[in-house]
């Protein structure tokens, strides 16, 4: 399964990360033809639980794992398919990622790349999904402690929500695009539980100011901001592999300080634009419309958004 599913040259368009399938992302991210899938779709390791709910299954349960090369470097890769069950963690889905991370501990690749695209836990397999997320987080931390960087890439339709947001927070480094969202509770969940006064989920601009890629990058929740192209994600992942922070007491103490400082500085802010203004952004209202180049220039002028405290 290593054909070029999308040939950018023939289309005259860069391939959008947001629109691409999980397989197309993996295919375009890695060196051409280098991806080797483990437990491919032909093995039909599908969810044993979805039929109980009369729901269709996917051959790969929405999680694609395997190995490949990134600019020649050996890496392991996991990719979630956000369109199948919202990319949510079920038993097989989660176990494939757990297995990949455990394999990495022995194989010591140059990095593990996790291509997030998830709404969180799959409700129909909630206990399995939640437990798998806990297993994933423990495995990531062990890998990081062993010196293997774990890089998260977030720019899919489903974002990185729920437990996916927690796993993202455990990674060594995160790449995010404008469309990427990172959050625990989704806007609809907050609105359902707390009312539209708390969060109007139909106000999409508000959603992105609160949990979108630019906001996360500006506030240090992500380390790199990429254009919505597979090529840009590939470049960003390459850049980050060599700059992964250690996992030790010093890092977590720095993170504690960073997060405490965020509460002190921004704890009373009601909107993303207020936070950006306090960060020193001259025209916060203009941030959502900034092009990648202009946004990168802005980031460069705000030193504190780049850190090793993760």
């Amino acid at each position, binding site marked *: 399964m290593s054909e070029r599913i999308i040939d950018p040259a023939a289309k005259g368009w860069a391939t959008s990360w947001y629109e691409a399938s999980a397989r197309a992302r993996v295919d375009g991210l890695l060196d051409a033809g280098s991806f080797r899938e483990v437990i491919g779709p032909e093995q039909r390791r599908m969810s044993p639980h979805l039929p109980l709910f009369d729901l269709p299954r996917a051959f790969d349960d929405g999680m694609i794992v395997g190995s490949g090369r990134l600019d020649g470097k050996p890496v392991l890769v996991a990719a979630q398919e956000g369109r199948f069950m919202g990319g949510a963690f079920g038993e097989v889905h989660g176990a494939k990622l757990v297995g990949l991370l455990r394999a990495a501990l022995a194989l010591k690749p140059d990095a593990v790349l996790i291509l997030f695209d998830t709404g969180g836990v799959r*409700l129909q397999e909630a*206990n399995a999904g*939640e437990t798998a*997320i806990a297993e994933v987080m423990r495995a990531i931390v062990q890998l990081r402690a062993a010196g293997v960087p774990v890089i998260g890439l977030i720019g899919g339709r489903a974002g990185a929500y729920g*437990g996916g947001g927690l796993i993202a*927070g455990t990674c060594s480094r995160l790449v995010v695009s404008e469309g990427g969202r990172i959050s625990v509770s989704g806007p609809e969940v907050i609105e359902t539980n707390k009312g539209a006064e708390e969060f109007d989920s139909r106000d999409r601009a508000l959603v992105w100011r*609160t949990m979108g890629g630019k906001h996360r990058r500006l506030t240090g929740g992500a380390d790199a901001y990429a254009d919505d192209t597979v090529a840009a994600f590939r470049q960003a992942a390459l850049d980050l592999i060599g700059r992964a922070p250690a996992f030790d007491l010093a890092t*977590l103490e720095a993170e*504690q300080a960073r*997060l405490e400082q965020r509460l002190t500085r921004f704890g009373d802010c009601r909107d993303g634009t207020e936070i950006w203004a306090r960060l020193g952004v001259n025209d916060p209202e203009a941030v959502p419309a900034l092009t990648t180049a202009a946004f990168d220039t802005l980031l460069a002028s705000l030193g504190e958004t780049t850190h090793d405290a993760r």
Partner: protein
Amino acid sequence: MTLAEILASLFPEGHSVTVAEGLVNGEGPFRGGRLAVIGIDGDTALGVDGACRLAGYVLDVVRRGGATPILVAIDSDSQRMSRRDELLGLNEYLAHLAKTLLLADAHGHPTVGLIYGHSAAGAFIATALATRVLVGLPGANPSVMDLPSVARVTKLPLDRLEAMAKDTPVFAPGLDNMVRTGAVQAVLDPGQPLAEQIAAVIDALPADDTRDRAGRERGGRPVAEAIAAQVVREAALG
């Protein structure tokens, strides 16, 4: 059991554990040393402020060194659902809290989760599920989502879900189902002193993450272990 009863059973000689705004912190004498306790009480939702404080407590224990075990006692709501929490990056705070517990474990502090009330979703993952071993007390009620909410989202009738929940531990809320999934290793006996039971749990800490094996043995997660093992077997750098 209430938190006070738990603490009394753990620390017959007294302790310094306090609860403020639902956050639990302190310690007590334990097997000639100390047992640190952090946690959430009173079905409190875990937001950015609480997660940050709990993480600070864990780092304090690690900084003090030794091999002080950490008990994470949980009766919480889910993560706090608010615009402010998400604006400030709740995922980073919850992940940070989990990471501090995992770091403590790596630094030789045995970490034990104890769920004695409710817990759900992000709050559960960031606390009790981030320990080396999680045990429960009868009456505890971990859940990802209650059945009426599941019914709403899946558009399945509640009575059918209730019937399915009886023999499908993979999705149904409740302590027994989390035991069968392997997330909760054991249920303690509230009639016996907890100090000895926790000590026994610490003495038997598994070296690796054995939750998926337990899930297979107990029937709650029939295939996870085999899938993960197959990936470990077959993955190779190319």
